[in-house]
């Protein structure tokens, strides 16, 4: 019954069955969470319900602003994130869910029609996570707030993970190759790297960053965290692509044509040998860090760091949930301009599932980060009248 499998039949990078099983479990968990959200909705205050209705309309109406400005953004979760921030994760989840359902009921010009309903779990997850992050204070960290230590620890953990990646590449050799053995090795190495990052972050939170809230240099720390994270992201991406035994070093792809004479696309030339590759990556990372510092020092920009952590992680989760839906229901395609990206990933050898997952991981974190930023800016302008209506309004930042 191949019709049930998420992965494409005959793909060159075969899916790992446990991954598939994990997704089905994830879907079950999500369904459960939504039932919980539905139950909890009985206790929602009238103000929360009014807010939800307004937020859903905002989600749908903002599409016309981005179309007007011809910006390649979605911003269809602004309302959902707002509800998560003001009324909590369960209200946020329900807002996301109902949003996609309402979207299906209305003929929106330029919209995908009733099939939008299939992505309701993604929108629900966004609302849930936004509520979680809001309770961690991303929208309103003030001096004296101890939780900032958590975000600094995350930056440190991320940097540690990238260092671990570097070590792994030098020793084990990390890169997604065609055979399933090395696929498993890639997955395991990845998990170890993530674990190292998490442990370092946890330790950092317990020790170095435990009492940082009162520190008057909080702003400097945030600037530092922004710079380190930006540099780490850039460094990791470069190493994942260009290092020996990384992506491009094994990338030879065969495209058939009708003469039976295969055309081979050889990307191996793009890989840079160490130590040159390492130096290049470091230089670029340092340059990015310098730019980040210059930017973060201006005005209130340092406060954006937690917001971006929240946005990026939400985007990653959204992509993870959306990929199986797109692969299973929509043939691995999104129906928008991002399909060009999907096609690109297909030519790089990724299967139906892999290509749409890669596309999601590329564009969703960015989109959600921008959404969170917009919500953050709007919340700074929130009048007291609104803030006092919602129990969590006090969590939002005082301008």
């Amino acid at each position, binding site marked *: 019954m191949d019709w049930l499998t998420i992965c494409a039949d005959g793909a060159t990078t075969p899916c790992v069955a446990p991954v598939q099983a994990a997704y089905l479990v994830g879907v079950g968990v999500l369904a459960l969470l939504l039932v919980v959200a539905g139950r909890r909705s009985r206790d929602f205050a009238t103000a929360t319900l009014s807010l939800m209705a307004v937020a859903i309309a905002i989600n749908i109406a903002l599409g016309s602003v981005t179309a007007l400005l011809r910006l390649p953004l979605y911003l269809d979760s602004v309302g959902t994130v707002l509800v998560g921030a003001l009324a909590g994760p369960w209200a946020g989840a329900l807002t996301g869910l109902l949003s996609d359902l309402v979207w299906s009921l209305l003929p929106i010009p330029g919209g995908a029609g009733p099939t939008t309903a299939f992505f309701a779990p993604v929108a629900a997850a966004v609302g849930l996570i936004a509520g979680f992050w809001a309770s961690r204070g991303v929208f309103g960290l003030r001096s004296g707030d101890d939780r900032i230590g958590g975000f600094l620890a995350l930056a440190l953990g991320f940097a540690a993970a990238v260092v671990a990646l570097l070590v792994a590449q030098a020793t084990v050799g990390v890169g997604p190759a065609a055979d399933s053995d090395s696929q498993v090795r890639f997955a395991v190495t990845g998990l170890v790297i993530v674990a190292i990052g998490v442990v370092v972050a946890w330790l950092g939170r317990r020790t170095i960053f435990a009492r940082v809230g009162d520190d008057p240099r909080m702003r400097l720390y945030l600037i530092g965290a922004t710079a380190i994270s930006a540099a780490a992201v850039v460094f990791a991406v470069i190493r994942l692509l260009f290092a020996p035994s990384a992506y491009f070093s094994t990338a030879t792809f065969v495209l058939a044509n009708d003469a039976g004479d295969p055309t081979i696309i050889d990307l191996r030339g793009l890989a840079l040998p160490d130590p040159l590759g390492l130096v290049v990556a470091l230089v670029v990372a340092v340059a990015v860090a310098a730019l980040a510092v210059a930017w973060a020092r201006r005005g209130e920009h340092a406060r954006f760091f937690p917001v971006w952590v929240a946005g990026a992680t939400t985007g990653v989760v959204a992509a993870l949930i959306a990929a199986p839906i797109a692969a299973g229901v929509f043939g691995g395609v999104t129906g928008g301009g991002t399909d060009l990206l999907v096609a690109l990933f297909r030519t790089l050898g990724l299967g139906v599932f892999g290509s749409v997952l890669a596309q999601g991981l590329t564009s969703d974190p960015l989109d959600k980060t921008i959404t969170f930023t917009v919500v953050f800016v709007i919340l700074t*302008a929130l*009048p*007291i*009248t*609104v803030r006092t209506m919602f129990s969590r309004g006090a969590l939002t930042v005082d*301008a």
Partner: protein
Amino acid sequence: MRPALRIDGLTVRYPARREPALADLSLAIEPGERVGIAGRTSAGKSTLALAAAGLIPRVVRAAVTGTVVVGKTDALHATADALLGRVGIVFASPADQLSGSKPTVREELAFGLENLGVPRAEMDPRIDAVLADLGIAGLADREPASLSGGEQQRVAIASIVTMGPGLLVLDEPTAELDPEGTDAVATLLDGLSAAGTTILCVEHDRAILERCGRNVTLDGGRIVEGTPARPAIGPLAWAAGRGRMGATVTLDRLGFRYPNGIEALRDVSLEVRAGERVAIVGANGSGKTTLAKHLIGLLRPTSGRVLVDGVPTDDRTVQALAQTVGFAFQDPGDQLFERSVEREVGFGPRRLGRTGADVANLIDAALTMTGLPGERATNPYDLDRSVRKLVTLAGVLAMDPALLVLDEPTTGQDPEGVERVGRIVEAMAAAGRTVIAITHDPAFADRWFDRTVVMAAGRTVDRPRPGA
């Protein structure tokens, strides 16, 4: 007989506000009475209305001392259920009163009955009775979202009345309505009063207050006798942008037809000299707003020409015209987005390319003219609706326009607010600027403007000042 509403020593203090909204207020209203509550903005009128309706402190958080008794029920400590069907409240924004979830007016009226748990069989008779009594039977199958403001407000009142309350509280019900809608609401209230409903009505509109049996004036959270004397707003002066000349406006056989075929303007010709003050009046649909939108380039003529300072608007973008024309829109909610009045007012001048000290001067001058220097750091949405309108007006003034166009600047303003807008018009004209205002208030037009242009069905009828 037991009073319908009895308030004793009521003090209400909102969180994070220094002054109490109401201070030791006592009031008794007999059944069937119709009492009007007047007073300037922020005198505490809305708070009084909310307390009488049992929404404070249950829904609106505030520290409360004193008692409010509706009939036999203690409104301050009652649960929602205890007060339903005894007291109802209607607010100022028509569209926000309605549930927004029902497809017809009839079902909208049923909304309250559904929440009350009234058996289905009883619903239709009650709804039919209210539709007939309030004279809105013709609207029964209409879609609530498609109704005019006045119609929506009447439906809102009807949907409360359907729940059968003996006491009806209204908080500025005509603030957002045109004269037609205001009349309709006033007539409806007459009918309700005649049928024995006790009415407590907070209002600015004199027409409504005159029809009340008794009027109570609030000032600073207390009941006062007569109208409190306020220092009059003397003549103002526009302190920034000296030496700029007012723009001339020429409408040369202007015609405009909407894409759906409606001809909103027919062959309108008008000359406005620099520094002149012109008021444009007319009924709904006469084309006044359509005409005004041509002045800022939001609409382009389908025939004829519009010239500002001799240059046709056709050739210029809205943003370019904004350098010359300051357009104050009717709904402040269409513009406000900054976290403080100061930043909001500074938005316009910065978009026009002004910088630094220049912008600061303009902001200062605009805030002084609108009487808002004390509110520089306040979030505009924390201010009363009528004050928000002054904030957007300040934002327009700060752009130092050669031509100032005002779209219904006095709706929702208390008498002091209307006076201030008039003084602003006078000051801008004294500074040499041209002012054109759309208004449905003939007294305002006559007092503050050199000339009144009357519009009907897309054409103009010139009407000189009486006595000129």
